């Protein structure tokens, strides 16, 4: 008797589960038919929120394509998730914003689907260096936004703004700097070279890199925090606990706008300019919608909105933008920026990581 009841109960449970499953499957199909969706990944936090609130609704209204926004932790971490998923032929995001170093790494396995420039008529608005290509010329990424890494300081602790990256080496700043922990995102080798050696060839050889690294090691007593997590440094910078360091110009500007005693300065040697590309995973089945999205993001008016609302530097030619000189200057700098030596980070990745970690941890 008990057995029968149990059996019946189990069968009933199994049947109900099947019914619930079928119902949810049905509703999924219904939704998918209602509107085309596209999954887009940008850096989580303030960045993603801004895109979700300011950019995506207008895009959906214009094209009917709904955007599912997913946060990515960092380009490098996201790259591994994308690649692992692509090996299993799935794409956690159709389009992702990817920084230059990660773009190059992804090329090694053809992770990025080649883009068709004919479907991206707006690409002509971009400055040509924002069209990213494979070595054989196929386009794999289109400049989404550019950003600057600058010298930031707490205005309460430093009433006078620092003017040069050389301040990082100033013995007066002992135990008061926050620098990024990795060579591939701090670009401190490039900064050291631009500040003290000014030799564009220096970072092309291991001997040259070691020379720059030795100079960089001199600032270690000044470093209070080697950070991987931006939030940790931002909090310490705002409170004055760690009153100087390197940080993103856009986020520092937002913190200042919120009333925190923080300023971002373009040093005389220049800020470090890095940028993110829109790239499509080869496993994505939504190539058409993805092209529509990327084309939309290349429009000068959208780029201007991003500059005004998110504080990123536009990838579109200056003359096409309706930004005032003041607005443009707040997100960019007329001075020549420090450009990361991507080939060094890419070709010597493992060796560089080893000597870098030894330098930082010793």
């Amino acid at each position, binding site marked *: 008797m008990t057995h029968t009841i149990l059996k019946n109960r189990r069968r009933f449970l199994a049947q109900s589960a099947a019914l619930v499953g079928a119902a949810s499957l049905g509703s999924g199909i219904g939704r998918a038919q209602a509107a085309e969706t596209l999954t887009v990944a940008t850096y989580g936090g303030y960045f993603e929120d801004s895109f979700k609130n300011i950019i995506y609704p207008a895009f959906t209204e214009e094209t009917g394509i709904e955007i599912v926004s997913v946060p990515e*932790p*960092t380009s*490098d*971490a996201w*790259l*591994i998730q994308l*690649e692992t998923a692509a090996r299993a032929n799935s794409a956690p995001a159709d389009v992702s914003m990817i920084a230059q170093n990660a773009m*190059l*790494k992804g*090329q*090694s*396995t053809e992770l990025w689907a080649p883009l068709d420039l004919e479907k991206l008529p707006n690409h002509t608005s971009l400055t040509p260096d924002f069209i990213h290509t494979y070595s054989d010329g196929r386009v794999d990424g289109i400049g989404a936004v550019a950003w600057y890494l600058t010298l930031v300081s707490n205005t309460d602790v430093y009433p006078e703004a620092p003017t040069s990256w050389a301040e990082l080496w100033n013995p007066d700043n002992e*135990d008061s700097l926050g620098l990024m*922990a*990795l060579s*591939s*995102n701090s670009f401190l080798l490039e900064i050291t070279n631009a500040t003290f050696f000014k030799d564009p060839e220096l970072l092309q050889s291991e001997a040259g890199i070691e020379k720059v690294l030795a100079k960089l090691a001199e600032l270690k007593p000044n470093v*209070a*925090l*080697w950070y*991987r*997590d931006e*939030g*940790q440094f931002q*909090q*310490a910078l705002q*409170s*004055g*606990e760690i009153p100087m360091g390197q940080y993103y110009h856009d986020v520092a500007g937002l913190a200042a706008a919120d009333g925190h005693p923080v300023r971002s300065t373009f040093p005389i040697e220049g800020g470090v300019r890095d940028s993110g590309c829109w790239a499509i995973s080869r496993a994505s089945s939504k190539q058409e919608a993805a092209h529509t999205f990327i084309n939309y993001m290349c429009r000068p008016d959208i780029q201007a909105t991003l500059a005004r609302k998110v504080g990123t530097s536009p990838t579109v030619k200056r003359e096409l933008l309706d930004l005032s000189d003041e607005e443009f200057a707040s997100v960019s700098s007329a001075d020549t920026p420090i450009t990361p030596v991507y080939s060094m980070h*890419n*070709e010597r*990745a*493992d060796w560089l*990581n*080893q000597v870098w*970690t*030894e330098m*930082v*941890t*010793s």
Partner: protein
Amino acid sequence: MSAPVLNAQQTPAAAVEGFSRSETVTLAWPMIMLSVFFVIPFGTMLAVSFFERVPGGFFEPGFTLDSYARFIDPFFFKSLGMTMMIAGSASLLCLILAVPFTWTLTRMRHHHRVLWLVALLSILSLSEVIIGFSWSLLLSRSTGIGNILVWLGIENRAPKLSPGLGAVLTGLCYLGFPYAVLVLFPQLSRLDPTLHEAARMLGASPRRAFMNVVLPNIAKALVAAFIMVFVFTLGAYLIPQLLGKPQQWTLPVLIADQALFQSNLPFAAAMSIFLLGVSLSLVVCVGWLGRSSQARIEDQSTTQSTTQSAAS
């Protein structure tokens, strides 16, 4: 985590043999699931550790010992030593705090004890990120507990206590303390109170009674708690990263760097396997030492009681 396992050791083998067929089937299911969800991911990691690294890219299936060869490096051994030192010190500190605490806990009134246990268990619901960030605020100069010293007039300027070794150990102890208490609690609460009382009546000071009677009786639980906290803190990577100076970045921090930022999964996997191997052998060693010392104590007490009964 390992507490039920340790208690299960005390279950007589005969009881296991006494399971009916349906019970065996029921028990087999979780066993199979555990094996599948542990063995397969572990096997994947092991396989990846032998894969070939593609410089500037990811990895290709293959068989190479290159990732393991990178261990032959003074830098690697220094990190390993630092990792072991930090996990060992954190576990030791945890025990030093947890033993008297748990001893007091077992002697509290029931509802006080429940309150404390609930508070301890609630720590387990906090993630490492929250714990790490909270401690970095608590130990900072601007908002930290050092300001109490300034307020009391002891210091002129609040000390900056994080990042540093002290901060890492504090964070790890906070993380491991509830586990240590939970492992020690059953053994200490089961301990016959008359043992301690007898020692006191025979003239032992409270400290001596505790050291010579209570501690040897809970040796097994002490070893279990040590291993538990050691293994747990060995794998922590957020606390050393958030609260430590670069010198205190443990192997898990370096593993995370390789896996998350360098896309060098073969090297990250090889380091993980190496760390796992080292910690397993340490656990076996400590367990063996614990067993042999326990056996020695039991041996001594048997000899003593035999001598006493012979004398009487």
